[in-house]
């Protein structure tokens, strides 16, 4: 028991001494985990870049369960961290619940939406995922020889359907007869971390003729990319640049510049401008990845077509339907 008491004492002492310097930013990762090679890792990279460039320091926490969301927010706000940056759509309601209690703290919700009228100290950063997905959908349809391409989503939420819908629209724009097979891994947060199911979904889609598969599924996507590489077909990564995971086997990655969003939020610090910010192709918030690992896979025609579409979308000549605007998709049935 003395050992136990001592351990407890040490932990308590550590916790006390770790009290923060004022006005450092804080970062809360969603359940996918800090190093998911994808969405949350992009946030981490942005924070690291900020820390390196400014020499500042920040605190972060990986959530383990739904119940910790509000707790983590309150803890950071009470310790004086500012701004408190969070990733994932699930953080919006906890933020809406606590924001009024800490009017001097700025909260940032990436992927979430909090009404700026009600909570003036919250910045909601949204991405136009449908536009980025449209571009990789075009590339997938061009790279496909079978005319069938696949999509594997993580948890079945409107955001992931937004990816799928943009992807299908892009594919149909290139090849109106293209078949898009869309599958979701599950309906619970466990769906973000089940590579075994990801593999099975990829295998099922391959057997139905898919030869390019886009995985928007966090850790589950690693299983999809692995199986695609094993079976000799192409895959498309998501959020972070995942081309390096299987060089020559990953066609491209749909980039979502969460790192830029985090970096800019931290740079602005306590003077952060709140409200709603949408990062699309024009703001370079979304895009596709091109590097040495996939240079051989992306032909000049492909690149020209995609860049042309990109210009059109930015100029407003081409509208990509956003699934979340009316919960339906013209190019894909769920």
């Amino acid at each position: 028991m003395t050992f136990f008491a001592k351990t407890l004492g040490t932990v308590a002492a550590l916790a006390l001494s770790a009290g923060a310097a004022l006005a450092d930013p804080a970062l809360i990762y969603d359940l996918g985990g800090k190093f998911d090679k994808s969405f949350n890792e992009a946030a981490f990279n942005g924070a690291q870049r900020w820390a390196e460039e400014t020499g500042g320091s920040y605190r972060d926490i990986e959530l383990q369960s739904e119940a910790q969301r509000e707790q983590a927010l309150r803890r950071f706000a009470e310790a004086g961290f500012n701004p408190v940056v969070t990733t994932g759509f699930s953080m919006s309601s906890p933020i809406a619940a606590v924001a009024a209690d800490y009017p001097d703290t700025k909260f940032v919700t990436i992927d979430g939406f909090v009404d700026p009228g009600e909570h003036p100290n919250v910045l909601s950063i949204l991405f136009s995922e449908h536009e980025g997905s449209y571009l990789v959908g075009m590339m997938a349809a061009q790279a496909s020889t079978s005319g069938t391409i696949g999509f594997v989503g993580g948890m079945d939420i409107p955001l992931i359907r937004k990816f799928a819908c943009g992807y299908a629209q892009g594919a149909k724009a290139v090849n109106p007869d293209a078949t898009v097979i869309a599958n979701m891994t599950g309906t619970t947060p466990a769906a973000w971390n089940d590579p075994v199911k990801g593999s099975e979904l990829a295998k099922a889609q391959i057997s139905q003729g898919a030869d390019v598969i886009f995985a928007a599924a966090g850790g589950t996507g690693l299983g999809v990319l692995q199986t695609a590489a094993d079976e000799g077909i192409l895959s498309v990564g998501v959020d972070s640049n995942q081309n390096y995971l299987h060089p020559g086997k990953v066609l491209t990655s749909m980039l979502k510049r969460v790192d830029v969003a985090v970096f800019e939020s931290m740079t602005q610090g306590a003077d952060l401008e709140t409200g709603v910010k949408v990062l699309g192709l024009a703001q370079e918030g979304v895009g596709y990845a091109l590097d040495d690992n996939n240079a051989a896979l992306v032909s000049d025609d492909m690149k020209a077509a995609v860049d042309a579409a990109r210009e059109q979308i930015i100029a407003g000549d081409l509208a990509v339907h956003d699934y979340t605007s009316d919960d339906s998709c013209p190019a894909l049935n769920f």
Partner: protein
Amino acid sequence: MDLDTIIQVLDSTIRLSTPLLLACLAGLFSERAGIFDIGLEGKMLMSAFFSAAVAFTTGSVWLGLLAGVAASLVMSAIHGLASITFRGNQLISGVALNFLASGMTVLIAQDWFSQGGRTPSLIGAGRFSEITLPLAETFRPIPVFGPIYADLISGHSILVYVAFACVPLTWWVLFRTRFGLRLRAVGEAPEAVDTAGISVTGLRFAAVMICGVLCGIAGAYLATGLQAGFVREMTAGRGYIALAALIFAKWRPWYAMGACLLFGFLQAIALRYQNIDLGAFTVPVQFMDALPYILTVVILAGFVGKAIPPRAGGEPYVKER
């Protein structure tokens, strides 16, 4: 639905059932001996990590398998120590082990590989490859039987065959050997076993260790057979589904295989067809995901037969004095 599709779905069923089956048989040994084991999930997770880590470091998947089994055995030993030697609550010990595995794997993985709680991807001999059974290509042209043999039965990793071989083996050990009789007796009436002069503690430890070996193989299959590396929480609740299958099978080996194949089949169907359109109405994928649990509840409620657990299950044995 044509034959090819059926074979693909069944093929997927076998892959998804294998970890369930191994974990289910593991639980069967343990629970038949009177030790409830809710920690199947944790043991699989621990084994998945250590098998992937050692397979990556040494480049040999067999060493990885050994390490995975060893890690799972350590977890079993802790469970045995807590619930047999110190007569603690078996459910609490199991839950604690699950938490321990969930945290420790990520912590150690981060310390060793610095890739955020995952192991690097395994390549070449670091993974179990799919083995082709003899004559698979010769039989292929034969209608129906050919594709079934070549695509469904052949072409899995060796651990799949091990898992299915474990079913008759488990039946034989439990119902045809002296050890099995004593093991079952220790789960029903440990005092009788004690009166006969046989060590209750020894038998229960043996059962818990066998459980550890089987969970170890299940975890290694997940990380080095199905996948090419460990990802945090990669067992994704399979240990709990295995427990449900165990109850569904009423603690019998052949039924366990049936239950695991059924649950695997339901998962495979849910993965292949998201929403099943039956004309008049659609079966949503969520229903398919929940079906194993619904079936288990139905069985537990006694609508279809009765699931009676081993009588001394969950009770630490206290020698009368």
